[in-house]
């Protein structure tokens, strides 16, 4: 924005500072984002191990180590998942915001309005919590895909211990996918869903932050969002 031509006439705007993201939600966000990044990177390595280790086999442990990191991050990812569920139920109202309440007109109209505003580059209506579009994206791409990866992932994990705990819990996923190889390929295909999400998500967060001047980027670190006092943002309270 060219501030030299605008500054003299622009009205003075005061912002309100509102605590939106509780520490539990913020911690989840960064643990989740890190875990997914590590899972995707190590997962692609498992699919195509491009490093070639020299020396005797008893001296090196490259592939197994990468798999170990994948599994450790997988446990972290799954624990963070459960952790975030707790905040969905017992956190503040923003922790539930945007959730696809498909039985409510309000959610659908917010979804259409937000999508239109983003596409037509209108500012329109602001939100303090997640808007309906964001809520839908998190539900499909993070919760939905997350469950798919947890189910297929732990099913693959169970294969090294047939009859063990994980086999009993999620072993049924393998015949459901059409065998072990197809479970691998399903797990691999879904993995790319997170890439699509991450690209769109990071872009929209940057865009939204610029468009609404709401301090969105920093909010996932500090917990605070900003709102111009005169703008009536949706604060997620029940109507």
């Amino acid at each position, binding site marked *: 924005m060219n501030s030299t031509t605008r500054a003299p006439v622009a009205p003075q705007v005061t912002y309100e500072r509102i605590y939106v993201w509780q520490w539990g939600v913020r911690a989840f966000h960064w643990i989740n984002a890190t875990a997914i990044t590590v899972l995707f990177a190590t997962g692609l390595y498992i699919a*195509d*191990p491009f490093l070639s280790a020299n020396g005797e*086999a008893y001296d090196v442990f490259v*592939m197994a180590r990468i798999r170990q990191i994948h599994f450790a991050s997988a446990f972290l990812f799954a624990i963070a998942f459960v952790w975030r569920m707790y905040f969905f139920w017992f956190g503040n109202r923003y922790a539930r915001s945007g959730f696809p309440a498909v039985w409510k007109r309000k959610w659908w109209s917010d979804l259409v309005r937000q999508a239109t505003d983003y*596409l037509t580059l209108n500012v329109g209506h602001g939100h303090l919590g997640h808007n309906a579009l964001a809520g839908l994206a998190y539900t499909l791409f993070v919760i939905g895909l997350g469950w798919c990866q947890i189910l297929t992932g732990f099913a693959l994990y169970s294969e090294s211990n047939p009859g063990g705990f994980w086999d009993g819990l999620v072993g049924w996923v393998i015949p459901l996918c059409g065998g*072990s*190889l197809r479970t691998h390929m399903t797990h691999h*295909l879904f993995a790319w869903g997170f890439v*699509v999400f991450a690209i769109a998500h990071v872009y929209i967060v940057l865009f939204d932050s610029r468009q609404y001047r709401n301090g969105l980027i920093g909010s996932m670190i500090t917990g605070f969002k900003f709102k111009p006092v005169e703008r009536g943002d949706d604060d997620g309270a029940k109507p």
Partner: protein
Amino acid sequence: MATSVGTRPTTWDLLRTHGFERRDFLRFCAITTAAMGLDASFVPQVAHAFETKPRIPVLWLHGLECTCCSESFIRSSHPIAQDVILNMISLDYDETLQAAAGHQVEEIRRKMIAEHPGEYVLAVEGNAPTKDGGVYCTIAGETFEKILLETAEHAKFVIAWGSCASNGCVQAASPNPTGAKPIHELVHDKPIVKVPGCPPIAEVMTGLLAHVLTFDRLPELDRVGRPKMFYGQRIHDKCYRRSFFDAGQFVERWDDDGARKGWCLYKMGCRGPTTYNSCSTIKWNGGVSFPIGSGHGCIGCSEANFWDDGPFYSRLATTRLPGVETTPQAIGKVAATVAALGAAAHLVSFGAKQVLSRDADKGSSHPETPQR
């Protein structure tokens, strides 16, 4: 071959009439016990079964198949196939191995069904084409589908030999022109044990039969109906090249240094990590070797859909989404590119709007965009 319909002697009876001694009989029992994967303490139980139980009549049907299962079976080295066929089970009908022919043998089958309902075991090699009324496989003027259902109706249980009977195998591979269906999709009311593999290992086949005779029931099966004792683990879990997998030392070309050093075949498309079978423990041809031992990856011949889930020499298999036939990685890259292009297009139009609106009304502020 003598038919045992009506007589039904025990295995021990039969061995005695062939001039075997007690010592030979016990040795046979010990070998059979080992083939079932049981320890020596089970030998008395096995001997007792062979002494007291009448031999199980087996009807062995051949549908759409290549006979590789029978070929494998007769090469069994532990309880050698001859012993199994002649002594342990009474093979009353088997198109490939029987001496009788024509209507005579069809008569044996019908007689067995009529006289011993619920007592005989049905072993099926191959599967049944179901398109166009099943005409793509007929025996003695009847469709195989009809013969199969008719014989299965009064069977004690059904053994699905090989990948054809268990999973459909090559004739059921896409586009499956004859509508071939594996046994479990046709026979619904009988216990079925699947013994997949193209072919299954001979010792697995005889081991299963030995178990069935000794205990008079099917062994413990896994979720998809395979005996756990032979299909409980992946090739990969008992593969002698596994240490190279863990190390990350892979063959990259068939003639490279890694291939000479016997490194892991994962990158050459080895399906060992996704295949349940006993090849890496029991091996083939009396324990001589198995594919990986000879420097070639596993192609997953005992897994469902293995023909469709190729290519055999690539780690990533083809994803069969409707209309799309490529690897998950290729699909993912396209999706990610589309997402990135979408974001870029949005950014460009946003930038363009900023520039245009600044030129249009220099100095005026947007009511909806609070400025700093």
